[in-house]
C-alpha cells in the first residue's frame, strides 16, 4: 500500500513538475538561455539523472544475482562511457552547437541523406533502449500492485507518451537533477540500512564458497502462478502443493542433481538448506563461480567482458537522449567540467546496486525459481527485514525504480518523437510552411507512435534480462554513432559516403549478431559470447569501413569551417566566423 502511494507520488510529481517547467521553457533556445545560470553541479546531476535508467536501478543487481559479479563490469562501463564522451566529444560538440545526432551528421558532413540514415539509427537505438525501461515498469507495477506484467508496460507507456506529448520533462534541468538525488537516496538508504540490520554480508558460503543458493534455515515456500520449467542443481527433496476445485494436494518428489522438470502452478516447498532449483535457461552457480568477476564460458568469458566494456565505453555517446543534455552547458570548457562531475556522481550511485545482487542471492533465492531476478531490488527489503521497516524501504526502492524509467524513457521518447516528427514525417508537408500548432500536433502524434513498437517488443521480452536488453542498445550505439562522432570530430578526411557505409556496416553486424544469438537460443562458447555482445567485432569493422570508404573516394573534403566551429576555443573574435550556428552552416553546403 505504502509502495503504491510512493510510486504514485513520484509519477504525479514528475509529470506535474514537468508540465509546470514546460510553461517556463517552451523551446530549445529558451532552454539554452535559461540554462546559462545553471551551475556545473546542477548540470551534472541532471545529466546523471536522465542517464540512470531501469538498467542501472534494477538490471545490474538482477544480472549480478543471476550471473554473478561479472555484472559489475556493466556499471563500470556505464560510468566509463562518460570518460570517453569527455575525452573526444563533449567540448567540440558543445561548440559545434548541434542539438541532436541527426543535426550533427547533416551539419558536419553537409549531407541531408546522411541525416536520414542517422535519424533511422536514432529510432532503432531509442526503441531498443525503451524496451528494457518498459520491462522494468511492468515488473515494478507487478511487484507493487500485483497487476499483470502487460498492464504495467501499457500504463507506463501511456504515462510517458502523455508526459512527452504534453511537453513535459523537456530540458528541465532542476527536475532531472532532483531525480538523480532521489535515485541515489532510494538505492543507497535501503542498502545501507539492510547491511547494518543484517550485520554485514550473510551466508558467505553461498556468496563466495562452494554452495548453491539454498532455502534458508526455515525452508522456502515459492508460489508459482504458472507452470515453471526448472533445473535442480543438486539432489533435493521437494514438495509441490497443487490446489484444484478448492482442495489442495501435496506430493513429495526427489530430484537428482541436474534434473530438469516442469513444476506445476501452485506452491513449491523446499526443506531447510535445500539447493534452490533455477528457471530453465539459466545456470545455477556455486558461490566461487558466482563471485568470480570473469572466467568461464558464455557471458562470463573474458571475450564477453571486453566486448561489453567496449560497448558501454563507446556506446554512451550514441544514446539518443544523452547529448541533448550537454547543450545546457554554456560553452566547451563548461561541458568538460560538467562531465568530470558526472563521472563522480555516477561512481557514487554505482556503489549500491551490487549490494542488492549479493544480498538477494542469499535472502530471496525464490527469484531463481521463476528467473525474475530483475525484481531483486524491489523484493529484497521486505524479505530481509519483515515488518514496517521493510515495507517502507521497499516502497522507497519502488519509487526510485519508477523515477528511473520515467526520466529515461521520457528523455528517449522526446528524441524519438522529435526525430519522427522532423525527419520521418512525409516530406510533402515539410516543404510547405507549417504553423506552430501543426508542428506541435505532429510531435504529439509522434510521441504516441514512437511508443507503440517498444510496447509490443516489451510484451515478448519479459524473459530477457533488463541488463542484456540494455547491452544491445549500447552495442548498436557503439557500432554506429561512436565512429561517426570520433571520426567526424577529429578526422578531416571523413566523407559522407564513408560515414554512411560505416554506420550501415556497424548496425547490420550488431543487429544480426543479436538476432542470430536469439534465434539459436543463446549458444555457449566464444561464438555465443560474441553473438550476445557483438561490439568487440562490430565496432572495429564500423571504424574500418568508415576510414576505408572515405580514403577510397575521389572526394577530398575540406571541412575548415566545421573544424573551426568544433575546435576553436571560445572568446577569440576570429574574422569571418559565421559558422558557430549549425543551422546557418547546413544550407551553406557549397561554400
Amino acid at each position, binding site marked *: 500500500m505504502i509502495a503504491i502511494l510512493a510510486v504514485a507520488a513520484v509519477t504525479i510529481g514528475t509529470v506535474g513538475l514537468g508540465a509546470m517547467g514546460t510553461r517556463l521553457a517552451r523551446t530549445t533556445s529558451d532552454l539554452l538561455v535559461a540554462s546559462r545560470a545553471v551551475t556545473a553541479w546542477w548540470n551534472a546531476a541532471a545529466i546523471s539523472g536522465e542517464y540512470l535508467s531501469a538498467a542501472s536501478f534494477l538490471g545490474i543487481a538482477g544480472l549480478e544475482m543471476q550471473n554473478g559479479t561479472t555484472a559489475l563490469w556493466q556499471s563500470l562501463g556505464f560510468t566509463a562511457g562518460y570518460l570517453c564522451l569527455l*575525452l573526444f566529444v563533449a567540448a567540440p560538440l558543445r561548440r559545434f552547437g548541434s542539438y541532436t545526432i541527426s543535426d550533427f551528421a547533416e551539419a558536419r558532413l553537409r549531407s541531408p541523406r546522411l541525416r536520414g540514415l542517422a535519424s533511422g539509427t536514432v529510432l532503432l537505438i531509442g526503441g531498443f533502449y525503451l524496451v528494457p525501461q518498459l520491462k522494468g515498469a511492468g515488473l515494478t507495477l507487478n511487484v507493487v500492485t500485483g497487476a499483470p506484467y502487460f498492464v504495467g508496460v501499457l500504463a507506463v507507456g501511456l504515462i510517458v507518451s502523455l508526459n512527452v506529448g504534453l511537453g513535459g520533462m523537456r530540458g528541465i534541468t532542476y527536475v532531472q537533477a532532483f531525480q538523480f538525488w532521489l535515485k541515489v537516496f532510494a538505492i543507497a538508504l535501503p542498502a545501507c540500512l539492510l547491511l547494518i540490520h543484517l550485520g554485514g554480508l550473510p551466508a558467505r558460503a553461498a556468496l*563466495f564458497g562452494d554452495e548453491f543458493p539454498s532455502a534458508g534455515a526455515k525452508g522456502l515456500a515459492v508460489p508459482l502462478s504458472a507452470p515453471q520449467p526448472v533445473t535442480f542443481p543438486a539432489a533435493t527433496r521437494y514438495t509441490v502443493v497443487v490446489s484444484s476445485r478448492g482442495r489442495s494436494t501435496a506430493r513429495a518428489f526427489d530430484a537428482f542433481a541436474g534434473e530438469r522438470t516442469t513444476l506445476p502452478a501452485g506452491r513449491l516447498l523446499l526443506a531447510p538448506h535445500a539447493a534452490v532449483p533455477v528457471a530453465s535457461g539459466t545456470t545455477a552457480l556455486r558461490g566461487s563461480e558466482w563471485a568470480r*568477476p*570473469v572466467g568461464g564460458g558464455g557471458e562470463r568469458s573474458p571475450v564477453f567482458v*571486453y566486448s561489453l566494456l567496449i560497448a558501454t565505453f563507446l556506446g554512451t555517446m550514441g544514446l539518443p537522449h544523452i547529448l541533448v543534455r550537454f547543450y545546457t552547458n554554456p560553452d566547451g570548457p563548461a561541458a568538460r567540467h560538467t562531465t*568530470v562531475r558526472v563521472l563522480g556522481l555516477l*561512481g557514487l550511485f554505482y*556503489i549500491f546496486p551490487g549490494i542488492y545482487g549479493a544480498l538477494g542471492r542469499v535472502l530471496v533465492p525464490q527469484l531463481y525459481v521463476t528467473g525474475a531476478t530483475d525484481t531483486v531490488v524491489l523484493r529484497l527489503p521486505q524479505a530481509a527485514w519483515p515488518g514496517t521497516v521493510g515495507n517502507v524501504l521497499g516502497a522507497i526502492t519502488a519509487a526510485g525504480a519508477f523515477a528511473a524509467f520515467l526520466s529515461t524513457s521520457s528523455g528517449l521518447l522526446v528524441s524519438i518523437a522529435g526525430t519522427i516528427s522532423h525527419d520521418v514525417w512525409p516530406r510533402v508537408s515539410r516543404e510547405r510552411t507549417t504553423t506552430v500548432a501543426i508542428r506541435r500536433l505532429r510531435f504529439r502524434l509522434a510521441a504516441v507512435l514512437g511508443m507503440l513498437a517498444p510496447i509490443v517488443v516489451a510484451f515478448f521480452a519479459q524473459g530477457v534480462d533488463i541488463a542484456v536488453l540494455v547491452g544491445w542498445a549500447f552495442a548498436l550505439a557503439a557500432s554506429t554513432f561512436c565512429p561517426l562522432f570520433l571520426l567526424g570530430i577529429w578526422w578531416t578526411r571523413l566523407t559522407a559516403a564513408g560515414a554512411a557505409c560505416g554506420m550501415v556496416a556497424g548496425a547490420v553486424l550488431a543487429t544480426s549478431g543479436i538476432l542470430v544469438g536469439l534465434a539459436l537460443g543463446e549458444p555457449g562458447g566464444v561464438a555465443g559470447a560474441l553473438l550476445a555482445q557483438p561490439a568487440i567485432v562490430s565496432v572495429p569493422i564500423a571504424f574500418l569501413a568508415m576510414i576505408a570508404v572515405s580514403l577510397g573516394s575521389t572526394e577530398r573534403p575540406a571541412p575548415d569551417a566545421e*573544424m573551426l566551429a568544433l*575546435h576553436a576555443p571560445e572568446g577569440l573574435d576570429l574574422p569571418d566566423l559565421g559558422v558557430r550556428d549549425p543551422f546557418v552552416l547546413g544550407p551553406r553546403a557549397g561554400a
Partner: protein
Amino acid sequence: MTPSAQPGGPTPRDELAEATAHGALYLRRLRQRQLALSLLTLIAFGAIVGVLPLAIDVVPQLRRLDVLGIPLAIWLLVVPLPPIFLILGALYARRADALDESFRELVRRR
C-alpha cells in the same frame, strides 16, 4: 572594414587571407595537441581497465585471497576504478583547458 588599400602594402583582403591561413595552421596544431592529450588519457585508462579482466582471469590468487571476507578480485573491480576515472577526467579537463588558453594567447599576440 574600411577600404584602405595603399600601393605596395598588404590589402585588408590579403591580411584577412593571411590571418585565415595562419589561423587554420594554428588551429590544426591545436586540434592535434588536443587529440594527443585525449589519446594519452585513453591509453592510461585502457592500461588500467583493459588489464583488469585478464589479470583476474589469469591470476587465481586475486580470486582466492580474501580481504575482509570478500575476494580481492571483487574489491579491485568495485573500489579503485571509479575514483581513477574521476582523477583521469579531472586531469584531462585541466590540461585541455590549458591548451585552449595557450591557443588564445597565441592568437591574441598576433
